[in-house]
């Protein structure tokens, strides 16, 4: 997915590919602006064109290309087989319609239900996502719901048609921590019940650690690491992944120990650095990183990385031992 702007071509998502199996969860992580959301919006075909344009590649659902489908068939998939939960429940519900009506809407569109049937189904869905007194609640308007309840309503809306794929774009970022946990629990419970696949987009590694089977790490519109959750968390093969892991605050270290953020800012997608996009911020950068773009390569079965040195076992060893908190113990300082 590229954006053609006045200032140049923004390669918002560039060469990212993954497959998703039924009942599995894929976590997509990365900083702001790394292309996570655009990836999701591309799947839903929600990126405005122009300026956006899928330049290359394909999006397939059960073997069929979504991109090649006529708009009408795409619409039949959206909200029906593929549903999406948005980031901010405060703004993603329409303020002028009753909650129940909004949840009933996908049923009316895709299942041809009568108004009454769809309403009854909406009430049942609200009950399933844990809203008490669902029948009365359905008659309320969004401004009468709290943030957590609205996100539950959004989930009910996404689930209405029993989708095969649920795309959650930072579903918990706008919620406070206790509600976050409830929402995640709810999503897991639903996944077990419905066998649907989930794409969980987040910048919070804690969330994907809990939920994801596979993790895709994105940086500057490119996939930098892909593998099972265990591989990515315990055997990271890319300095950026390591940086993300290290920048999490931890409770088991001395509270005086400094946090370990990744220094610098993500690059502008119009003026990408030459070579590896991460090299200006990478403390392991060598001259080769500045000159050539590393391809995404399978290092061990099912574990991909796009670092020049990922297959160098000595380097991986160094990566693992370079962990900020580990090294801070004897020398008594941060990085």
């Amino acid at each position, binding site marked *: 997915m590229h954006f053609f702007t006045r200032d140049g071509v923004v390669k918002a998502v560039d060469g990212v590919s993954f497959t998703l199996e039924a009942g599995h969860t894929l976590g997509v992580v990365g900083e702001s602006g790394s292309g996570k959301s655009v990836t999701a919006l591309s799947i*839903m075909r929600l990126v405005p064109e122009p300026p956006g344009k899928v330049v290359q590649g394909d999006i397939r659902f059960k073997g069929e290309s979504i991109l090649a489908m006529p708009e009408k068939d795409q619409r039949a998939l959206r909200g029906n087989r593929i549903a*999406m939960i948005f*980031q901010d429940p405060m703004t993603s519900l329409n303020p002028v319609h009753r909650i129940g009506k909004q949840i009933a809407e*996908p049923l009316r569109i895709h299942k041809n239900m009568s108004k009454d049937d769809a309403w009854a189904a909406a009430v049942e869905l609200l009950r399933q996502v844990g809203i*008490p007194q669902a029948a009365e609640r359905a008659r309320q308007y969004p401004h009468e*719901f709290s943030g957590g309840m609205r996100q539950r309503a959004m989930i009910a809306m996404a689930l209405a048609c029993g989708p095969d794929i649920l795309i959650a774009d930072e579903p918990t970022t706008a919620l406070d921590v206790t509600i976050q946990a409830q929402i995640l629990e709810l999503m897991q419970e639903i996944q077990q019940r419905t066998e649907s696949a989930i794409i969980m987009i987040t910048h919070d590694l804690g969330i994907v650690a809990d939920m994801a089977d596979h993790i895709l790490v994105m940086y500057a519109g490119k996939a930098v690491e892909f593998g099972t959750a265990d591989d990515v968390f315990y055997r990271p093969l890319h300095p950026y992944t390591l940086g993300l892991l290290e920048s999490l605050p931890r409770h088991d270290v001395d509270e005086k120990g400094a946090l370990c953020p990744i220094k610098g800012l993500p690059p502008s997608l119009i003026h990408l650095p030459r070579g590896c996009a991460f090299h200006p911020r990478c403390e392991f950068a060598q001259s080769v990183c500045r000159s050539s773009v590393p391809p995404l390569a399978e290092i061990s079965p099912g574990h991909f990385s796009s670092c020049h040195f990922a297959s160098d076992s000595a380097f991986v060893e160094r990566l693992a031992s370079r962990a900020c908190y580990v090294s801070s113990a004897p020398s008594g300082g941060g990085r």
Partner: protein
Amino acid sequence: MLRRNKRNEPAQALLAAAETGGVLAEEGEAFAGRGRTLRADAMRRLRKNKLAMAGLVWIIIIILIAITADLWAPQTLGDPTYIDTNKVAELSLQPPSADHPFGTDKLGRDIASRVVYGARVSLLVGVVAVLIMVVIGLFMGAVAAYYGGIWDSLIMRTADVFFAFPYILFAVALIAVLGKGFQNVFIAIGILGWPSIARVFRSSILSIKKNEYVDAARAMGASTLRILSRHIMPNAISPIIVYATMSIGGAILTEAALSFLGMGVQPPDPSWGLMLSEARAYIFTAPWLMVYPGLAILTTVLGFVLLGDGLRDALDVKLKE
């Protein structure tokens, strides 16, 4: 009013929350406001606005007068168009009296009766012309905002061309092309008015389009038409309601102006503008000829403007107390 008979609900909500383990306890208070729709809220605010209510009451009175005119006006006041050729000299230019509360005109017709029938013309022009401009304007605005690009440029530049000409001059020119008469006044005002509606609607769609719930509706598989009618329209319609209400006042004024210039309603049919035109010669000798139709125009237009103003305050969610 809806709130009053639901007083006991916070307690119920708290009970329910306690049953669910208190997880949702903080939401007990949300129950107090159940059933308060945005529309009911707006109506409540409108009812508190005295000026707007005065405007509304006055408009309703005029509408009732206009609708029922045939039932009482000719009998008690006299026919608005009939000229009794035998008694013209005797009846001409009488000042207000018990028989003719607003006096009579040069041809001996009752002014009050003509003002009453003039209300029909004015209201009909106001409502129909505004309806025409709203329908065209909404369509154009929606296409411009939703499809954007070339459509946006095409429609909005056309609108700019309309704005470039002096309004009355353009209206007179249009009537000159279409021909004098009542129906063509509708058409002229409708055609001249749509660019303003289109502009207002376009800009409110553009701001609403950015909302996540529009993306959510697309993600739900809703068609463009459905998104526009179900999700964008209800949110964008407030400024249109306000603007249309005020435009009715404007359309009445325009009709009066066109009739005054002889381009609108043709004699002997009564119209407030036409009556003013006929009264020009008698400003000093028979001022009642001018005062009553003038007052009718003033108060009717004022009524619509006050109502529109009140609606704007009532429909503005940001002013919510």
